[in-house]
């Protein structure tokens, strides 16, 4: 009869806690210095809620980064025995079953962090008596606990699927970045090898695949630390951490202990490791090799056969390096492995050729006029007020069938130019980005060059005061002038700053100037040649000297 035992071994727990006391002791010391001691230092200077908010915001980011490094350390210490044959054999010879070992070790690692976190928060609360906003310290504790749970869960999972601590730690770091980096690299490659196809890089969405980046990014800006921006992902990651812990436990129950020391301790993990490592190496190393051996040219400018050659070389290096790590020998150049690499190389070549020669007809696709409802045009180098020296992103909505026809003609002309031998969308005109809105609701995005003289008629037709006002009305509306906008008076060279107390009046004055042709110009980057800058949350706007209404409003700026 199978014995019924507890899932917790006090002996093992005591052994872990006492053996690794220096680790959590140091953490506790650091936390006490950064928590209660820091609060005590400032208690006689600043007890405002603003100070406390700033303190908590800074702490949040620090603890996220700290947990990113501390959690895998805890996981490595309590589960390292699985990666050494002697310790793995000995621990499994003891009368402690696997579930008990797993749960006890897991709780030990959790305690290394949870106990210091709780102690720090309690002492911080005591020292923060009299501070306004000290309740935010509980939120910091929640951040510490939830983020640790996720990072720890991920690290434990990596320790379990791996048979080697170094590989486990590398996997942990990779899993924090690779799912964001790989799609990004693929999109960059697709952009480089296709003409005109504007593959969207949704970096906001991609960052969710990189937990540490997403959490730090959303925690960096105090005002954006909303439920949706920060807490929801944090809770989501914490739940994911729990799921990974459960998966780790399920794996541990079936784990072959003899796999201690191997790179990966499970068949599917070995396959995943081989494929992901090869793909990463092919993309990363392929791009680097192409750039190095093409005398510093970018990927697009390199000859296609050269690019294919280096990607195949990179796939070779990636595949066999992964095999060497998995098999712990350099003798991996055998028939089976060579066949595997040949498959990987073939897929690489086919994918590159498919992209370059537009096998699916994506880059030569031009929407049919009858299916086109409207289009949005972005002109990279043209401002709406035809000031060629300014740099702005003019966005024009096109609904007129005649203008849409002209736009499609421009697109076809551009493709024809490319097919005649141009190597890419660089260097012979104006870059425009078009968002075709099809009648079915689908949007097709393309970026291509058109010769400057070809786009002029289209721009002149669009450059009417009505269009300009409509455009700026929308733009200024997007700017959402609020009391936080302010004016920087460069004319006096003293950087005086005024708060915008009448945003509606300012907006009306700017629109009036726009209607008369004195258009404010959006700018990116500082340009001290100009006189006035309006800073608002979403844009910086330069007010030209000719803008009489806006300037007048500045002159009698109300108190």
């Amino acid at each position, binding site marked *: *009869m*199978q*014995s019924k*035992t507890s899932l917790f*071994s*006090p*002996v093992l727990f*005591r*052994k872990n806690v006492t*053996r690794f006391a220096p680790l959590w002791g140091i953490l506790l010391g650091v936390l006490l210095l950064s928590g209660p001691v820091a609060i005590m230092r400032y208690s006689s200077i600043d007890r405002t809620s603003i100070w406390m908010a700033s303190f908590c915001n800074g702490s949040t980011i620090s603890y996220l980064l700290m947990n990113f490094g501390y959690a895998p350390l805890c996981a490595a210490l309590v589960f390292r025995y699985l990666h050494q044959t*002697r*310790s*793995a*054999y*000995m621990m*499994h*010879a*003891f*009368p*402690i*079953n*696997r579930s*008990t070992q797993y749960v006890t070790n897991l709780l030990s690692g959790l305690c290394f962090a949870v106990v210091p976190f709780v102690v720090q928060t309690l002492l911080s609360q005591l020292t923060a008596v009299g501070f306004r906003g000290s309740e935010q310290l509980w939120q910091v504790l929640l951040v510490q606990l939830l983020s640790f749970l996720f990072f720890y869960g991920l690290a434990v999972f990596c320790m379990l699927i791996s048979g080697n601590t170094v590989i486990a730690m590398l996997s942990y770091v990779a899993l924090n970045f690779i799912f964001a980096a790989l799609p990004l690299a693929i999109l960059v490659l697709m952009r480089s090898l296709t003409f005109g196809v504007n593959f969207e890089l949704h970096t906001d969405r991609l960052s969710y695949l990189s937990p540490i980046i997403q959490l730090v990014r959303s925690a960096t800006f105090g005002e954006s630390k909303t439920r949706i921006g920060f807490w929801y992902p944090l809770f989501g990651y914490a739940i994911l951490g729990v799921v990974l812990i459960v998966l780790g436990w399920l794996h541990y129950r*079936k784990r*072959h*202990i*003899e796999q201690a020391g191997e790179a990966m301790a499970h068949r599917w993990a070995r396959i995943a490791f081989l494929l992901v490592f090869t793909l990463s190496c092919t993309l990363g190393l392929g791009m680097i090799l192409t750039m190095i051996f093409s005398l510093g040219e970018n990927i697009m400018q390199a000859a296609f056969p050269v690019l294919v050659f280096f990607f195949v070389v990179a796939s070779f290096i990636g595949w066999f390096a992964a095999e060497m790590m998995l098999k712990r020998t350099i003798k991996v150049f055998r028939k089976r492995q060579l066949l595997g690499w040949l498959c990987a190389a073939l897929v690489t070549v086919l994918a590159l050729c498919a992209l370059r020669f537009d096998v699916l007809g994506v880059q030569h696709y031009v929407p049919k006029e009858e299916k086109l409802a409207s289009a949005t045009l972005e002109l990279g180098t043209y401002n709406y007020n035809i000031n060629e020296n300014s740099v702005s992103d003019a966005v024009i909505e096109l609904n007129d069938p005649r203008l849409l026809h002209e736009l499609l003609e421009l697109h076809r002309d551009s493709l024809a130019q490319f097919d005649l031998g141009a190597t890419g969308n660089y260097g012979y005109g104006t870059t425009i980005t078009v968002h075709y809105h099809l009648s079915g609701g689908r949007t097709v995005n393309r970026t291509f060059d058109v010769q400057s003289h070809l786009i002029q008629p289209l721009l002149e037709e669009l450059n009417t005061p009505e269009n300009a006002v409509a455009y700026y009305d929308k733009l200024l509306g997007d700017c959402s002038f609020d009391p936080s906008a302010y004016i920087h008076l460069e004319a006096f060279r003293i950087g005086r700053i005024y708060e915008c107390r009448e945003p509606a009046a300012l907006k009306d004055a700017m629109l009036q100037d726009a209607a008369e042709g004195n258009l404010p110009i959006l700018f990116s980057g500082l340009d001290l040649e100009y006189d006035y800058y309006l800073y608002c949350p979403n844009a910086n706007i330069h007010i030209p000297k000719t803008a009489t209404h806006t300037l007048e409003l500045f002159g009698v700026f109300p108190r």
Partner: protein
Amino acid sequence: MIEVRNITKTFRTVRALDNLSLTVPSGAVYGLVGPNGAGKSTLIRLITGIFRPDEGTITIDGQPVYENPAVKRGIAYIPDDVFYFPSANLAEMRRFYAGVYPSFSNELYYKMLSLFTLNERMPIRRFSKGMQKQAAFLLSIAVRPEVLILDEPVDGLDPVMRRQVWSLLMQDVAERGTTVLLSSHNLRELEDVCDHVGILHQGKLLLERPLSELQENVVKAQVVFREARELPNDLPVIHRSANGKIETLILRASQEQASAALAALNPVFYDLVPLTLEEIFVYELGGADYAVKDILV
């Protein structure tokens, strides 16, 4: 009683154990011998519940071993390469063993500690290999196990300590009836302590018998005939060699049967000599295509 039934264990493409069955009677001292790579350590790790068998069952007194702490509480295991928690000293290991094994006896531990020259407060990693082995023995015997499993137990010990360890082991077996399974390359030492022997080769059990049965059924005879002659076909000769007029015969027969058969041949002289374990293995299996010589030290 340890019962291993039709065990198969494969490491990727290597079949370490192949449909192996073995029985260790209660209270027996069972010696497991075999050349390097025969599967001894794998079998021991399966019996101690470290490895999960691909096929077959392993039970101790009818209870499965794998993932069964109740059964494993009665097993003490000393691997060939002993492991202690890094930087732990003997006192810390004692506390751990005492917490994990309910049968652990502090009294016995301290009694035996006085026999060994071990510093309880010194980190075990600073011990010599032999001292680490002694520490493992100390802890394992103090568990007072029902089953003691030893993988190359006296490797690294000096001759005096070897004798002391075997003596302690035998004393424990005699007092408590502990079942012992041990593996070794050294047949001469096994002969002194084992009452059952199993020989492993390439993942299979070639032979498993009580030692006494082996020794009773094989005898060595030194014979001098008046003149060279052919031996009758019904004489169970395993091996025949000659040195001048003296012939050495290895016979698969009891002492009485061999004596009667040889007397019937009317030799000038004959004498029956007991065989060592080493000789039994050589002569029993010498004709087979097995690397028996590799087993021998």
